[in-house]
């Protein structure tokens, strides 16, 4: 979805905010299976969540420094690649994050399901 004119900057800022947390969760989920950077990007993109390489690699590094990921350099197809996977701590954090995300998502769905007029009526009663 795109907006025009003066609203586009606000939309872009909010979109980035919305994406930031989601991307971290998506990367953590994807790394339940060991993958290297480019493959993570491809896998996410194939599932409809495109991620810029300049976002992905710093994010991987940050998640690793937080102990949520582990990585190792290994040769594959005659090239050295850095493979990432979820750490045991990352698995725990991901479980909690997914629970939080599901709760937020269902709350949002409920909010969206109630028409605005009906909501006003309920509040005034």
């Amino acid at each position, binding site marked *: 979805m795109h907006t025009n004119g003066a609203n586009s900057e606000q939309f872009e800022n909010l979109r980035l905010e919305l994406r930031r947390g989601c991307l971290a969760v998506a990367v953590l989920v994807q790394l339940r299976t060991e993958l290297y950077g480019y493959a993570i990007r491809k896998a996410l993109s194939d599932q409809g969540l495109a991620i810029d*390489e300049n976002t992905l690699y710093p994010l991987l590094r940050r998640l690793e420094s937080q102990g949520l990921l582990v990585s190792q350099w290994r040769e594959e197809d005659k090239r050295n690649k850095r493979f990432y996977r979820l750490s045991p701590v990352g698995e725990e954090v991901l479980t909690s994050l997914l629970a939080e995300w599901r709760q937020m998502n269902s709350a949002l769905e409920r909010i969206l399901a109630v028409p605005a007029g009906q909501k006003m009526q309920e509040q005034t009663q």
Partner: protein
Amino acid sequence: MTQTDLIDRYLNAVKLWLPRKQQKDILAELAEDLHSQIEERESALGHPLEEAELVDLLKRRGSPMRVASGYIPEHRLINPAMLPMYWMVLKIVLIWVLAPMFALIFIAPLFNSQSPGKGLVAFFVTAFQSLFFVIGIVTTVFALLDRYHSKWVDRWDPRKLPGAPRTHQQMQWYNDFSGFAFGVAAAVFWALTMWHRSAFVFNGGFRIILTPIWGQIYWLVIALTLARAFVDLYCFARPAWSPARAWVRLALDALKVAIALVLLRVTSWVVIAGADLSPAETAKILAWLNATIQVTLICAAVIMLFDWFRQGRLLWRAKKGRSTPILTVS
């Protein structure tokens, strides 16, 4: 230019901005990703990438500085929670302290300067130096607060917050702070101008000699002006009215009125000497100077009496319970 050349140039430019300890690791991963991307692109096109295509790919990847910036941990100088306070302090210092200081201290020498051009340049140099010095000091204080006492922002109690001013008293804080700023500026001005001063000497040897009364009230004026300024500052910081504050202000104002009255009892505040003037002209200038001082003193006394009356009225009304006293008394 070969493909390897272009990639090496790009990676080298990224390296320049990366944290030293992580350079090797980040660049290796970046190079691997670039090669994967190039491979994919070449297999889609069915031929090795040409120079223009590789340039396009690298450009879409982003400038070296932008790429590197993603790996640099975010540093902040001041806690975002403290930013509103930082801006407020900066504005207060610049508008209420520095601006009057410029007006009182720095602009004055311009009028005495033999060369207005040089004076103007000196003024701007001093003004900019002071400006950057003040901004630097305020920023450093807040950066240190953030570094060593960042948790104080979260240590608070709703019961200890200053009382909220009522709608019709919203401007009281403004009066209090301006009272403080101008009080300090006036005290500084008085202290610098009158320090061991027995006469003002002008070009051509013309002198305005101060009578001893000015030396006798020198410290008293500084003490009273500063005391009143700090009472204003206290009221600004904690804008809740109390009879004690009103009494303190009443007492200070009463002392100031007393000084004005003592001064008014003197018939001659200055004498003039050294001028190449006739006795008639000298007498005329002297009368004009003394009359000006007299009128100034009377005006000051009237203003102080008016303020004294306001404080007294508020106290009286509060005592009678006829109306809620205003939260701050200026």
